[in-house]
């Protein structure tokens, strides 16, 4: 570790390329904290939005027309308005209205970013799952029904596992978008990667270097996600289904 730090210090002196995150322990810590916050936000959002998306996709098939319309309204609303405006709506408009507990707001900036991004991604996930569910052959569902599965059991045991596999490529795309969208949390001062990097570059005045670091970080994160999801896709593949 010391060697790396020494090398980057030498790099700074020799060329003027100032990558403080590699040798200034305070900056290293801030950068890693930012990274951790981004990963945390993305992970929580992923889990929550997939769960909510699956639920919404199930409700799309509801027998009650009002439920179907409400789900459709929610999905269209979140898909067709700017994510940043949604985030501002939650944080600046809804946030102050909610009751406070012991003088503390109910949700901080991280909480609101989580809520906003989860709802946005859930809207996308719901559409993806719906397409996946529609791709499950009717005969398969009928076969499950003939075996005495209830409506919920058919969904949980037959439709969902197959739909998940069909939707894997689209979900990978969605996950990549999610990681990219977490950068919006910068706007409401969530201490994520962009925010922390902005703090570093405004103090150290090394904007070009930090920009490159940021871009490389995100492109690397997305590359890893693509790789992992591709492997998962291959592992989960059901012979004779899809492709």
């Amino acid at each position, binding site marked *: 570790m010391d060697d790396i730090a020494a090398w980057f210090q030498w790099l700074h002196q020799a060329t003027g390329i100032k990558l403080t995150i590699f040798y200034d322990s305070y900056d290293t810590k801030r950068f890693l904290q930012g990274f951790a916050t981004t990963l945390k936000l993305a992970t929580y959002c992923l889990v929550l939005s997939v769960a909510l998306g699956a639920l919404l996709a199930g409700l799309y098939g509801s027998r009650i027309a009002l439920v179907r319309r409400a789900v459709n309204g929610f999905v269209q609303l979140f898909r*067709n*308005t700017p*994510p940043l405006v949604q985030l501002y709506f939650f944080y600046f408009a809804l946030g102050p209205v909610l009751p406070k507990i012991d003088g503390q707001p109910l949700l901080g900036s991280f909480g609101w970013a989580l809520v906003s991004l989860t709802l946005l991604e859930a809207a996308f996930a719901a559409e993806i799952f719906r397409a996946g569910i529609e791709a499950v052959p009717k005969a398969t569902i009928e076969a499950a029904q003939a075996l005495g599965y209830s409506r919920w059991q058919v969904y949980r045991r037959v439709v969902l596992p197959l739909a998940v596999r069909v939707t894997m490529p689209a979900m990978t795309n969605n996950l990549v978008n999610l*990681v990219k969208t977490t950068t919006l949390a910068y706007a409401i001062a969530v201490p994520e990667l962009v925010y922390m990097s902005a703090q570093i570059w405004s103090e150290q005045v090394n904007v070009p270097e930090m920009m490159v670091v940021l871009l490389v970080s995100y492109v690397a994160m997305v590359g890893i996600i693509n790789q992992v999801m591709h492997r998962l896709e291959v592992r989960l593949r059901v012979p004779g289904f899809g492709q």
Partner: protein
Amino acid sequence: MNDSRFAVLLPLRLPAPIGDRSSGGVLFSAQVGMILIAVLATSLAMAQAQGAAKPGVIDLLIKWTPLLAKGFFFNLLISVCAMALGTAAGVLLGMARISLLGPVRSGSWLVVQFFRNAPWLVLLFFVMFLLPFEFRIGTTVVPFPDWIKVTLGLALPIMANIAEIVRGAVQSIPTGQWEAARSLAFSRSETLWKIILPQCIKRMLPPWMNWYAILTMATPLASLVGVAEVMTVTGRITSAEGRTDLLIPIYSYVLVWFFLYCYPIAAWTRRLEARYAER
């Protein structure tokens, strides 16, 4: 497609049923719009009931509408310019993606991957901070205002995604078209521009429109790098009025504006997709 300027080799296709067009009237699903407007109306009604002595929230919204409209128009201007720029660059990059030269292919692949995977906000920062605010060509100073930089920044991811659309569309054209053109002594570039690309336009249109909608919804990012578009204006209005009861109505109002602009595009895209899929 029947434009005589292009030598397009189309397979035999029966004319589309005319009934297809007559149903085009109802683009906008009224339900969804109604939900949004209902949210706005409820919040308005609640706010109106609270602040009886002060000017009503509806009056405030009406008062600020011209200013908001100006901001929103700026968003649209940025989106149209970025789309034009991104499409032009994207088509060229897409051509590079299917080039016969290996290095050009892999180089353009790298560019596409990079700009597709980088977050838009980071790209905006990149362009904002690293481009100069003016250019010097000889002795004349060409100013390079922030909004043009934002347009450039937004055009980059659009370029990469359009390039992928172009590549996908070109590759979806049957090889027979290439072979037929070759047997008629068309050169490769003639084949591409006069035979293949005109056929691609139809396939590219829905995803292209989709990306335009996404781009429009990304324009509020410009407010984060200091361009005074609709979100900046909204922020200024709320701080000028200093009324907490105005917050929900005004942000819903801006959401409604974007929704009314983007939803018809999305609905139209879906219709086109469905229609092309039928054939």
